[in-house]
């Protein structure tokens, strides 16, 4: 039990010290030239308190969708990569050969690549 608690405790302490240390260092030795803009909470360059029906650039939307392609890819590839060579992983659990699982993952990657190539050809990555 101690072996489990001790590293976690150590991690919590280190994290707390790091956070407090950075804030303290900033407030102690940092220059203090405050303006109205700098006083605002940071929210990706947007006004943090505004009308909910505000417009924003449609290019953000495209970037978000393109991001999703890779995000979903990682979401699936990571567990597969970990389980694939693990002796107690996919092959052992459900009796599928590694080759079949590999082929299935490749089908998934190819389908995502289709989306990627399509977005690329349609000019999603050009910040016009």
């Amino acid at each position: 039990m101690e072996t489990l608690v001790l590293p976690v405790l150590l991690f919590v302490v280190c994290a707390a010290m790091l956070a407090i240390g950075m804030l303290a260092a900033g407030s102690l030795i940092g220059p203090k030239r405050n303006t109205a803009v700098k006083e605002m909470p940071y929210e990706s360059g947007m006004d943090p308190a505004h009308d909910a029906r505000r417009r924003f650039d449609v290019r953000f939307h495209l970037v978000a969708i393109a991001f999703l392609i890779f995000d979903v890819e990682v979401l699936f590839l990571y567990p597969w990569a970990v389980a694939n060579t693990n002796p107690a992983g996919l092959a052992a659990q459900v009796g599928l050969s590694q080759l079949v699982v590999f082929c299935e993952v490749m089908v998934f990657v190819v389908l995502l690549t289709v989306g990627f190539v399509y977005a690329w050809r349609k000019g999603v990555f050009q910040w016009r």
Partner: protein
Amino acid sequence: MFVDAETIRLLWPEIILIAMASWIYIAGAFQPHRVWWTCFSLAVYGVVAYVLLGTESTMWSAETALVGISGPLRIDFLGFILRCFAVLVGILFTLIGARGSSRQLTSEFLATVMLLVAGLMLVARANDMVLLFVSLEMISIPTYVLLYLGRRDRANSEATIKYFFLSILSSGLFLYGLSFLYGIAGTTTLVGMMGQESVQAAAAGFVQEGGELYQAMAPIALVLLMAGLGFKIAAVPFHFYAPDVYQGCSNANAGLLAVAPKIAGVVAILRLLVVAMPWAADIGWQLAIVLAVLTMTIGNVCALWQTNLRRLMAYSSIAHAGYMLIGISVAFAFHEGTSASGGIGATLFYLLVYACASLGTFAVLVALGSKESEVSGLNELAGLAGQRPALAAALAVFMFSLAGIPPLAGFWGKLTLFSSAVNTATATADNASFAAWFTLLAVAGALNAAIAAAYYLRVVAKMYFRPAQGDLPANGGLGAQAAVVVCVVLVLGLGLFPRIAVQVTHLAEAAVAPVDPGSLSAAAAPLPRLAGDVQGSDDASWDR
């Protein structure tokens, strides 16, 4: 349960469709050429139809109507005919819609339709809750994209958003129902074979062994699943999106909405609720009867004073969902111990007949419009018979078929449905409430058919007996005209030779429901009896 080489072999048509759709997306981004890609995708459907008919040609005999289960798939005759029909629907959509979308987006339209058809084909044979849900989403998601591609204006965007949110809500309800079903049964396989656990067997055991919790959860699962699928087929408490969405979107997309989700929803209801949940049939038939009567009546009565054609067709599609629910309630009642059957077969036959006539109607509307302007008002059709006699005649055929006028397909559809309800009523004459309910159902159906005739005939009267007000462009393209011809041939063919189609749908019913031949031929008294030779050619003996 797990996929093996055999399953992959059985999935070739879907795999071809998805691979070719991906190819059209990518290559179409390099070389957007409307005619080339339309021909290419028609060729793909041709190859898929060839593969489909080639690999499963043995289906055409009663002995092998149910082949078996492979992985998450159930290979039976019901799935086979619906897969063939899905390919046909894909070809028709391709013909109808290719002209409509803007030139740059044609390849996107074609590829998205292809994915939708792949989804329809998967729904037709899904034997697993997860596959069923995924394939229903494979229909919904392309539908959102297609709705958006149809036109670029406020009304279309509003319709798309409305459909998107309500469809997501219905998917949520459906998924929630599936989770209850999984909780009751403890398996995701819908109908098992020897030694394979299924929802049907596992849950029946639990429910009968008395677990009060299971007995309490069965209606919840049924109602949630019915609600989720009710959105797809636009049954009444869940119908309110249909008129607005149909009116807002383009004619081709309205045709898509009237057919694709309806096929998927009806098949999912048959596979999931009727066949796999016989232990919930006592609530099922009551629920289906109430929904059927409400859906028919509200759909038909509201359609009476519509002046927008797409809105009219939306209410018409709601009403037809009500007719199909008659067959579904009969099929539910079959599990409740009535010896009469025929519900599933009648529903399927009606579904095919409705889809042909409805697609044909929208194909005519597309053919009457042009890229710039769409036909939408009922008054725009005035005097059409003088200007475009062929298209007017085609539209009249579809309207008569939807209304159920005798020599056309719609009549046989209604006849099989109503007679299945009447047969259930007579077969259960000893159980008074049962018989009364199904007699009421048949009477309500017949009354509704009379109401419906009023607004279908109004369209015909407008075309033939009113002076022309203006000239319609009638520049919808060759594809839409070809689709009109195909639909006319189907509606007339099914109307003049209903015997083959009725037999095919009864064979499909026999493949999913455990029917003994005696009760089937008794139930289908006015219908041809189920025989081994499906391609029986003695149509003369089919007494009209």
